[in-house]
């Protein structure tokens, strides 16, 4: 069972990342955290950027951990899924850079 969980861990982490980003964005907009905070960014966008960066870093750490073992096919699939998790976290978070937060 542990091997199976390890295999899909990259996408499990992406699921968490996606849910966290969406929830933070919704919460920030609903609570009106739209005042400029740092570097001209609104409070919500600043938090989203920080959290997104943290999530990408977590995906990188997970990937490095997964890459330490590649003896079995499940471990190799796990590494591929780790790459997918990392790529998906980057791509689905890109709107944070490009789009206004609450409109």
């Amino acid at each position, binding site marked *: *069972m542990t*091997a*199976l969980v390890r*295999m*899909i861990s990259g*996408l*499990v982490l*992406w*699921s968490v990342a*996606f849910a966290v*980003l*969406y929830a933070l*964005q*919704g*919460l920030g*907009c*609903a*609570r009106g955290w739209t005042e400029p905070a740092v570097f001209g960014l609104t409070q919500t966008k600043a938090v989203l950027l920080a959290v997104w960066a943290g999530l990408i870093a977590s995906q990188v750490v997970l990937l490095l951990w997964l890459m330490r073992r590649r003896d*079995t*096919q*499940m471990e*190799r*699939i796990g590494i*591929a*899924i780790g790459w*997918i998790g990392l790529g*998906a976290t980057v*791509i*689905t*978070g*890109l*709107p*944070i850079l*490009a*789009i*206004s*937060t*609450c*409109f």
Partner: protein
Amino acid sequence: MKAIQLHRDLTRIWEGEPGWRGVLTSVSHTDLGKRFIIAAAVFFGIGGVLAMLIRAQLATPESAFAGPEVYGQIFTMHGSIMMFLFAIPMLEGLAIYLLPKILGARDLAYPRLTALGWWCYLFGGSIMILALLGGVAPDAGWFLYPPLSGKEFTPGVNSDVWLLGITFVEISAMCAAIEIVVTILKFRAANMSLTRMPIMAWYLLATAGMMIFGFPPLILGSILLELERAFGWPFFQPELGGSPLLWQHLFWLFGHPEVYIIFLPAAGALSTIIPVMARTPLIGYGAIVTAVMALAFLSFGLWVHHMFTTGIPHMALGFFSAASVLVAIPTAVQIFAWIGTIWAGRPKFTLPMYYIVGFFIVFVLGGLTGVMLAIVPFDQQAHDTAFVTAHLHYVLVGGFVFPMLAAAYYWMPHATGRTRVMRLGIAAFWLILIGFNLTFLHMHLTGLLGMPRRMYTYPAEAGWTWLNLISSVGSFMQAFGFGLFAIDIALQRRVGNRSRRDPWNAETLEWAMPTPPPQYNFASLPTVDCREPLTRDRLLGAGLAAGRGLLGRTIGHRRETLAVDMVTGAPEHVAILPGPSIVPFQTALVIGGFFLSMLLSLYWLAPVFILGTAVMVWRWTATTGTTKDDGPVDTGQGDQLPTSFAVRGSVGYWGSVLAIAASATLFASLVFGHFFLWVVAPNWPPPGDFGAYFLEPALVTAGSLLALAAARIGARDFARSRNGAMISACSLALAVAGLLIGAIRHLPGPGEHSFAAVGWTLTSYAVFSAIVGLLAQIFITRRIASGHTTSDRPHELRIAAVWSDYGAAVALAVAWILSLSSASL
């Protein structure tokens, strides 16, 4: 002579009861799988007739064929039947029939649960069809958006039929999902590691996992909407702090994964059939497994793309748009793997291949328009137009119906032991392919020209007349094609010549048994050392039939199959399976009584059926197990393995874990609903005085923690297990009391505001979960007393502990969520 005796003994052990009683008591996965498939095909026929009525109505402008009320029922039932009564049950039927056979097992993990699922599906589907015949079918669209589906705009029972009928059917889907996951992880051939599994098993594992996490939000949504309709609890009414958007979130949290839940098993069939037809191994097994897992997860990040026009901020739309585009990549990986396999092999252009080619054409077009709709500005233009209708039919017919037609022709010789008699299937193929494209290809244009979906008529000046007429002609052509297909299949079943075993020279284990298959599948169970066992050893089937595999002997009347380590496939224990039973049928009847009493507004009667269901479940579990210690049993090849009664990680335990995972998903969705309404819905905070309270949560905390500790101690040390179970049950009763007192003292009436409605729902759920845990612990005390649970047969202790742990954890969480929410208002 020994082989013939073995077959006689196995037939005696595995055959069902005779006559009508046998129909009601059957737990055979082969019989039940076929029943699911046939019933789903019948529902497909009904849904198809409704589609013809839609096309008859829309063939000409200002048609007088059907008025808006009737048309509303027709298109709602067409969509609902095709999604809930055809597609999902068809994939369940395929999995139920096929899974043990491709894995080298004799049955599924929970034969009686399979039967319960079947009866729930049949009864729930029948309620829907009877409502259609009675003219009171659902009429608010297959996704039943409030406020249209609410009491104000749909005062009759139409929406209740959908909410209760579909939820009844969903019980069947949840049973199947748990069954499929546990069967794949535990009931495989010896040494069949996960990466030696046939590719179909990976697809079904992903699908069933998605069902476990994808269906509970819909079940929750249906419960909430029914509570609103029946008792006026305002979850979706903005004037009382609710929001119709909550329904859309819950529905599409299920609804978009649903598309992939439907597609993945069909893709599994393609990945199985294409290498056989191409006469070469599947290219990119590892890449496909990776892609399937990627689809299983990414598809949960798409649901808001059905809500692009609801006013959600653009950044959030961007998250979902990005995920929607991303999901095309793992889909394309599979498409290229299939094309590569055909390219690398020597393809035979047999009938299944015709439908596979049809799949490629139709599904790729549907995928492309899907990418178009994933782009927010385009979707905002095309939303709710006929363009979307065309897109979804390209995806679902291309991604499910065409592969299922290929699968039908591929596995018919297996199910019937007969070959095709005529060339009707090819004529049917061309009629379906041409008719389908004639119906839907230019429907994209109809949509782009502005025709909304679901409108019952249109003016001649709109300029949509000729497009609609061509669609209607094409749809009738399709209908003739499906009619020919049905005739072809019926002829094969009735008058086809006897087929030889494995007519396709296939690679997977289902072809290593006699066809049609005996109830026990294999006389002895295989040991595998590669993914294509039949390619390695063409005489494998004969060897197994002669009893040269594992468990090639019988013990009394015992139904046995092999359980293995989840990852490596190393033999772990011998699972003892139950025989024919009337209990699943009776349980489904009692559950049906609950749904009917709700539907007929006999609310006072509903608790009687809830109690009846609890009694039936108790009876069900009480008839399992043994009071005898058999010790390890011989596998028939000289090895000794324990039976399932003597191991801790039995399938019962894993099934409980998965059922709790599904229940926890429903709970998480409800907690999401609580905070969603609080943050997003208008008219918050609720009127009235709220404040901090800690006495009742403290009571619940004490009860829950004591229950957790007592269950742990009891599960670890058998000498203290009975006392542990008693203390755990009493502590859970304390938690229940704390929850109820807290709700009565501090929550307003559930009809006053959505905060109170959600609060009462959370409390009810926690009370329910805690009572389930409490009953599990009381059950254990009875089992210890009766000698079923002993230090040598401890597995039920672990199962009871997992249920009471969950009940305690939920009680604890709900008590503090409500307390802290009240303090924050």
